[in-house]
C-alpha cells in the first residue's frame, strides 16, 4: 500500500515536471530570435531528472534508516522494566507483536496493556512519519521543479545535459563488469589468504599429493594439499576434450563454411548448435549413464581396463559439449577470411582442399587458435560433467582410463563435503578458485592478443 502511494506520488511528480519543462520551454521560445536550442521533450526530461534526484534521495534515506528509526521508537514504547526483564529473543517477539497490533491484524491471546498502548502509538508514529517523508519528498521535488523551471531558457542545452545523464548511466552499467571482477578477486583472495596461513603456498602449488584429512583422525595433521594432481587431471581432461572436439569441430566448420550448400548449412548448423544449449548437467548424466558403461564395455571387449568413470569418459563427453563452440567460432572466423584470398588461390588452379589447407586455414589460424584457447578455458572451467563422470580421484596418474579429478570438482567437493569449514579442508576451495581464475585469465589474454594480431593482418 505504502509503496504504491510512494510510487504514485513519484510518478505524478515526474509527469508534472516533464509537462512543466515541456510547456515552459515552448513559452520561452516565442519570439523571432528565440529558437530553442533543444526540443521541448528534452527540457521536459531534464526537469523530470531534476525532480527525481532529490525525491529519490529522500526516499532512499528513509528506506535505509527508516526501519532503524521505527525499531528504536518501538523499543522506547516498551516500558523500561518490561524491556529489562525480556531476553533479546523475547524482546524481538514482543516487538513483532506490537507491529502486528499496529497493523490491525491482531495477535493471538490477550495482548498485554503495554503492548496495546505501544501498538496504538506505533500506528500513529507510522502514519506521521510516513506523511512527513512523503511531504518532504514531494516538497523537495516541487522546489527542485521550480528551480528547474527557472533555468529554462531557449539557450539552455537541455539535450546535452540529458545526454550527459544518459552517458553517466551507461558508464555506470559498464562498471558492473569491472565490479564483478573485483568482487571475484577480493572474495577469493581473502579466504585464500586464510588458507595459506595453514598451508604454505609452496606446498600448495608444487605439492604432488592431494590428500586432505579430517583433523581428528590420523596424526591430527592437516593432510596434503598438492595442487599438481588436480591440475594434471584438469589438463588431461581438457586435453582429451580438445582431442575430440578440435578435429570434429574444425572439420565441420570447414565443411559448413567452404563446401556446404547454404541450405544444408542453415539446417545443420543449428542442429550442431543444439549441443551448445544442452545444460552441462545433462552431459554429466549422459556420461555417467551411457558413455561410461559403453566405454568400459569396449574396454572389456578389447581386453583393456577402462573405468566407467574416468578422465577419458569426462573428456570425451566434454569434447562433445565443446564441438559446437569450436565449430561455430571457427565457422565465423573462416567466413571472415576475405573471399579474395580464396579466389586468388582457386584462380591459380588450386583445388578446394589445397586452398583451404594452404591458404584459408593459415590465414585464419590465429583466430582459430584464439577460439581453441577460449574452448580450453571452457573445458578447464567445466564442472558438472567432471563431477559426475571423472571418478573424482585426485591422484597423479598418466592413464586416461583411470579416474581423475579436477580443480572445479574439488572446489565443489571441499565446499559441500563434511570437512571442517574453518580449516584448510574447505578454505582450500578458495585458493583453488583463485588458481582457476588466474588460469583462465592467462588463457584469455593470450587468446585476445592472438586474435588482435589476426585482426591487424587483413586491415
Amino acid at each position, binding site marked *: 500500500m505504502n509503496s504504491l502511494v510512494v510510487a504514485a506520488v513519484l510518478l505524478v511528480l515526474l509527469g508534472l515536471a516533464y509537462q512543466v519543462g515541456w510547456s515552459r520551454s515552448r513559452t520561452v521560445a516565442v519570439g523571432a530570435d528565440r529558437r530553442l536550442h533543444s526540443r521541448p521533450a528534452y527540457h521536459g526530461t531534464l526537469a523530470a531528472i531534476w525532480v527525481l534526484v532529490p525525491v529519490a534521495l529522500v526516499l532512499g534515506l528513509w528506506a535505509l534508516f527508516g526501519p532503524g528509526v521505527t525499531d528504536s521508537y518501538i523499543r522506547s514504547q516498551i516500558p523500561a522494566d518490561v524491556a529489562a526483564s525480556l531476553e533479546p529473543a523475547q524482546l524481538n517477539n514482543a516487538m513483532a507483536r506490537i507491529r502486528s497490533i499496529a497493523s490491525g491484524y491482531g495477535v493471538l491471546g490477550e495482548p498485554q496493556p503495554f503492548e496495546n498502548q505501544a501498538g496504538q502509538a506505533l500506528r500513529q508514529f507510522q502514519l506521521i512519519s510516513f506523511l512527513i517523508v512523503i511531504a518532504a519528498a514531494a516538497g523537495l521535488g516541487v522546489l527542485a521543479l521550480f528551480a528547474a523551471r527557472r533555468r529554462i531558457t531557449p539557450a539552455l542545452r537541455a539535450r546535452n545535459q540529458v545526454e550527459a545523464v544518459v552517458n553517466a548511466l551507461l558508464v555506470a552499467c559498464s562498471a558492473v563488469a569491472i565490479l564483478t571482477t573485483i568482487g571475484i578477486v577480493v572474495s577469493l583472495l581473502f579466504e585464500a589468504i586464510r588458507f595459506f596461513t595453514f598451508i604454505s603456498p609452496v606446498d600448495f602449488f608444487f605439492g604432488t599429493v592431494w590428500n586432505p584429512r579430517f583433523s581428528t583422525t590420523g596424526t591430527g595433521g592437516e593432510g596434503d594439499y598438492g595442487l599438481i594432481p588436480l591440475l594434471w587431471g584438469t589438463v588431461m581432461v581438457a586435453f582429451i576434450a580438445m582431442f575430440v572436439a578440435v578435429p570434429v569441430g574444425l572439420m565441420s566448420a570447414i565443411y559448413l563454411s567452404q563446401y556446404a550448400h547454404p541450405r544444408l548449412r542453415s539446417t545443420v548448423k543449428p542442429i550442431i548448435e543444439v549441443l551448445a544449449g544442452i545444460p552441462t548437467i545433462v552431459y554429466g548424466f549422459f556420461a555417467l549413464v551411457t558413455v561410461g558403461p559403453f566405454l568400459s564395455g569396449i574396454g572389456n571387449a578389447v581386453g583393456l581396463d577402462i573405468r566407467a568413470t574416468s578422465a577419458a569418459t569426462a573428456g570425451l563427453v566434454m569434447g562433445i559439449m565443446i564441438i559446437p563452440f569450436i565449430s561455430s567460432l571457427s565457422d565465423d572466423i573462416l567466413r571472415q577470411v576475405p573471399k579474395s584470398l580464396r579466389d586468388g588461390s582457386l584462380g591459380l588452379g588450386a583445388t578446394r582442399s589445397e586452398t*583451404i589447407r594452404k591458404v584459408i586455414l593459415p590465414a585464419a589460424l590465429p583466430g582459430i587458435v584464439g577460439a581453441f584457447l577460449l574452448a580450453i578455458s571452457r573445458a578447464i572451467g567445466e564442472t558438472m560433467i567432471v563431477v559426475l563422470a571423472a571418478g573424482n580421484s585426485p591422484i597423479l596418474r598418466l592413464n586416461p582410463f583411470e579416474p581423475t579429478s579436477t580443480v572445479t570438482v574439488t572446489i565443489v567437493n571441499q565446499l559441500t563435503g563434511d570437512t571442517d569449514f574453518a580449516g584448510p579442508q574447505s578454505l582450500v576451495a578458495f585458493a583453488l578458485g583463485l588458481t582457476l581464475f588466474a588460469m583462465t585469465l592467462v588463457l584469455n589474454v593470450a587468446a585476445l592478443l592472438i586474435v588482435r594480431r589476426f585482426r591487424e593482418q587483413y586491415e
Partner: protein
Amino acid sequence: MTDINMQQTGSEASRKRLEIIRASLSRRHRAEAIFKGLGIAAIVLALALVGTLFWQVFSKGTPSLFQSTLHLDITFDPEVVEVGPAPEAGSGLSPAEYEEAYLDWRRALALVNWNELIANAIRDVSGTEIDGGDVRALVDNNAGLVLRSRFQDNPDLLGQTVPMDLLVSANGDNWLKGTIDRDLPDERQQLSADTRNLLDELRADDVITMDFAWHLFTNVDSRTAPASAGLAGAFMGSLYMMLIVIVLAVPIGVASAIYLEEFAPQNRITDLIEVNINNLAAVPSIVFGLLGAAVFINYFHLPISAPLVGGLVLTLMTLPTIIIATRAALKAVSPSLRQAALGLGASKTQMVFQHVLPVTFPSILTATIIGVAQALGETAPLLLIGMNAFVASVPASPLDQATALPVQVYLWQGNENRNFFEARTSAAIIVLLGLMLVLNAIAIFLRTRLERRG
C-alpha cells in the same frame, strides 16, 4: 585434350608443363575427395552425437512420463474422518482468531488416518484384507495428503464416495514396469510377495493403469513420497531466475555494450574493460558461485537458496555474453546508417538510440535468449549458494527458497532409489531439454530471419 591440340599450342615448355600438372591431377583430386569426406564425416559424427544423446535421454525418460495410477472409489467415512465442521470466516472472529480456529480444524484433519480410507477402498475392489502398513507399500505416501487436501477444500464430502486417482508407490511402480528384476528372490525384493501379487492383480483388473504423469509438472519435490515428486518448485525457481536475468542482464548488458562500442574513448581503460569482459565470459561458472556466496550471501546478507541470489549470480555470468554479442551487433551496423543520422544533425545519442539500436534489436534478442538459455542450464554455481536444497513448496517470490531445474536433476540423479529415479531424472532432463530447445529454436528462428533480411 588431345595431342593434336597440344601441337597447336606449339610451345614445348607449355606442353611439358601441362604434362607435369596432369600427372598429379588424380592424386590431387583424391586428396580433395578425402578431405571433403573428412568434413562430411565430422558433420555426420556431430549429428550422430546429437541424435544419440537425445535418443538416450528420451528412451530412458519416457517410461517415467507414465506412472502406475490406482483408480479407487474413496468413501469419506465419517467413522474414520472424525472432525467437526470447518470454521467460517467473518462470524464475529477477528482475522487472528479465525486463523487460529481454522488451524485447529486443520490440525484435527492431520490426525485422521486417511490410509484407512484407502485400505477400505482397496478391499472393496480386490476383496483382499489389507492394513495401513500394506497401504504404504502399495500406494504412494502422498496419497493420504491428497485425500486430506481434497477434503479440506470441500468438507461437504463427508460421507460421500468419490472416484480418485492415486499414485502407486515408487517400488510398486518399479515392480509393475519391470525395472526391478521380477525373478529375484524375496529377500532382495523391496516389496513383500503379497503386495506384489496384489499389484499384479489390480493391474490385471485395470484398477491400476499407466497414466501420463501430470503430477511431474504440477507437484513439488518429495522425499517421503518419491512417486509423486514433481518439478513445479524447481520450475518456478528457474523461472524467477530467468526473469531476474532478463530484467537485469539485458538492460545493463546492452547499456555497457553501447557505452563501450559507441561512446567510450579508445584508451587504456576501455582496453582494460574489454579484456576484463572477455575474461569474465570465460571465467568458470563455479567461480561465480564462490563470488555469489561471498558477496550476496555473506556480505549483503541476502537469503540462502533464494532465486534472487541465483538470479544475480547468473546475471553476472550472462552479462559478458550479452555485452559481447551486442557489441558485435553494433559493430556490424553499417557506417552509412550512422553517417545518415549524423549528417542530418542527429546527436550521437540520438543516432545510437533512434537508429543503430533498433536495427540491432534482433541480434540482441537472439543473444539474450541464448544467454538466458545458458543461464537456465547452469548448475555448478547454484550448488555453492545453497540452491541444492530440498524444497517442498513452490516459491511464491524470488526471495523464497527454491531449487532450479538443473539442480533438481542433480539431486534426483543421486537419489538412493535408483530404479525409480534414474528414469525420473531422465524425465526431468526431457523437460529441461524441451525448454532449452524451445529457447534455442526461437533464437535460431530470429537469427535466420535476420540473416535473410540482412
